[in-house]
């Protein structure tokens, strides 16, 4: 039982990252019906921006410019980096996606992939090859709950990511912008004719998705404090799987599927020999899609599919 609970907590933490990144994919999808394949690398850029911001804040505090407690630095870092990274997302949209609005969807996927490679290589060229250690802003405190170990970081990560997902949900439900996004997701052709600016909405979704990716990047830096230019690739692709598994363009679906991905990976390693983890985990995903070909919250493909 203790093992199960322990892994449940592990999976919650790990799934949070997938969920946050998958939300970014889903946001963009709901408007443009495209996946932003540079998203994993925007996550990486977000983590690096977070590194830069937090290092600067720590340095300023140390110099005595102002006295900030570490938790406040972390909060400020998350907010600042989300703000800055959302511009990265908008630039990616402007450069790689807007010129291709009427092109086949796969072409935009290729520009996304290529922008991703440029971000990785650019980072490598600018910052050199060494990995960067994310500053330890909060001290790790481990709580022993009858054989189940929980750290304050784990709690924080899960709470923050659930909070962000909820905030996004509220944004989509309650605000005018959110209504516009929903309308656009409902009909891509007619809604722009009724005066909703398509380009602005696309930039908005890219910005929102990237901000979430930045938050994920910083939380990632807190949990796994080793950053390198290629850190976004694998997690990005896996979150892409989660985004689709949840059903395209569904906020709730992406969040749940992100956690599901985390659960599958952690529990497969728990139950089966861990050497077979990828083999079994991806077979499960393949089977899920064979029996639920449209993910959990998606609708069957039909006329909506542009090509």
């Amino acid at each position, binding site marked *: 039982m203790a093992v199960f609970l322990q892994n449940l907590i592990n999976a919650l933490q790990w799934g949070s990252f997938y969920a946050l990144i998958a939300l970014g994919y889903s946001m963009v999808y709901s408007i443009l019906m495209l996946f932003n394949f540079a998203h994993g690398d925007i996550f990486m850029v977000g983590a690096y921006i977070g590194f830069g911001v937090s290092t600067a804040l720590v340095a300023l505090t140390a110099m005595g410019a102002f006295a900030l407690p570490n938790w406040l630095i972390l909060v400020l870092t998350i907010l600042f980096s989300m703000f800055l990274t959302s511009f990265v997302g908008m630039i990616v949209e402007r450069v790689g996606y807007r010129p291709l609005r009427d092109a086949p969807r796969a072409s935009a996927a290729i520009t996304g992939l290529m922008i991703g490679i440029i971000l990785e290589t650019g980072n490598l060229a600018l910052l050199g090859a060494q*990995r960067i250690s994310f500053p330890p802003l909060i001290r790790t405190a481990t709580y022993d709950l009858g054989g189940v170990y929980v750290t304050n970081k784990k709690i924080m990560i899960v709470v923050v990511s659930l909070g962000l997902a909820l905030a996004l949900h509220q944004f989509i439900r309650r605000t005018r912008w959110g209504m516009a996004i929903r309308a656009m997701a409902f009909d891509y052709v007619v809604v722009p004719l009724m005066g909703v600016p398509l380009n602005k909405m696309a930039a908005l979704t890219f910005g929102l998705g990237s901000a979430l990716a930045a938050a994920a990047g910083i939380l990632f830096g807190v949990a796994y404090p080793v950053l390198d230019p290629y850190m976004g690739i694998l997690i990005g692709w896996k979150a892409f799987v989660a985004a689709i598994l949840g059903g395209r363009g569904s906020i709730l679906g992406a969040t749940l599927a992100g956690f599901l991905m985390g659960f599958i990976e952690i529990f497969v*390693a728990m139950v089966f020999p861990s050497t077979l983890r990828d083999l079994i985990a991806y077979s499960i995903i393949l089977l899920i899609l064979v029996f639920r070909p449209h993910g959990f919250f998606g609708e069957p493909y039909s006329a909506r599919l542009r090509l």
Partner: protein
Amino acid sequence: MCKRLLLVGMLALAATFLFPGVRGAAAVPTIRIGINAPLTGDIPKVGEGTKYAAQMWLEDINAAGGLDVGGKKFKVELIIEDNESKAESAVTVATKLITEDEVLAIIGPQASKQAVPAGEVANNYKTPMISPWSTNPDTTKDRPYVFRGCFLDPFQGPVAANFIKDEFGFKKAAVLYDVASDYPKGLAEFFKKAWEEINGPGSVVAFESFTTKDVDFSSQLTKIIQSGADVLFTPQYYNEVALIVQQAHQLGWDKPIVGSDSWGSAETVKLCGKDCYGLFFSTHYAAAGATGATKEFIDRYNAKYGYVPDDVGALTWDSMRILQQAIQDTGGLSGDVKKDRQAVRDALAKIKNFEGITGKMTFTEDGDPIKCAVIVRISDKGEFEFYKSVCP
């Protein structure tokens, strides 16, 4: 106009065929050495270390006015090529270096997945190649022209197992390794074999794995903690070491963690912080408290590039030096690159007790060095302290 142009062109072409040009007077005879390094791709840091160590070596040579072989000064040119951490790219780079740049010898590639196929190429073209870092036996096996700069997994595995047994007297060990990467996997298996020989079958109570680029090991670590192991052996690269050690501590593991030579990077402590203090690993050399040439190398590298060199840097440095030794041992180069390659290869095979900064080296028939391993303890200041030395 068109015709006249053509005519001029044809005449020029004919002229060059009739009067074969004389190759521009070869003022300074040049030795070209190829470096096959992963500058981009999965392990750019390894490529960087290789490049820096090689460039530092070249500085020395240039400062001395060239390489002195048999009383003649040769200019040395390094040709550094990027193999993108891909097997096929490593093969094309090796082929290019040998057939196009006509290098005398090649240093690299580093990772076994590239060194194995690139070694095949070097061997086919009878060009000496030294892989400083590849631990896969296949790299040098039945390949007289391929050498390596480090010890092999079958040696290091038992070193770690014996050390744990002697030091702590534990009976149950756990292993955590990357199943998709050949170095950790090989070492994990040799460790398991050695440990079970000492402590009987079943004494490796958890043999857990993950896949390259994973960052969350909580499930595997939970399993390891539940298995009741006394010690965790994890032959991983430094970036993963930091994560594994921190996560293990967060999951309540307070027993020793032991590692292998891949821990031997300045970044280990930088990334891992206090969590890694007091842990042991086996490696080629201990950076803290190093003396003589080793210290000199570390200080120079640190001053020049701003960090203490990794094992890759040190091994590359040794490989460059051992190659230099071999070139000088030939007693003179003929200028015919094929003959010279043969001479260098023969000289390499004959080298005895080469004093490298990572220990004394003598090549076996397969081209593998016989070297001592060092057990290093990460001190409470985060430095790599010499703990003890194990020789084959």
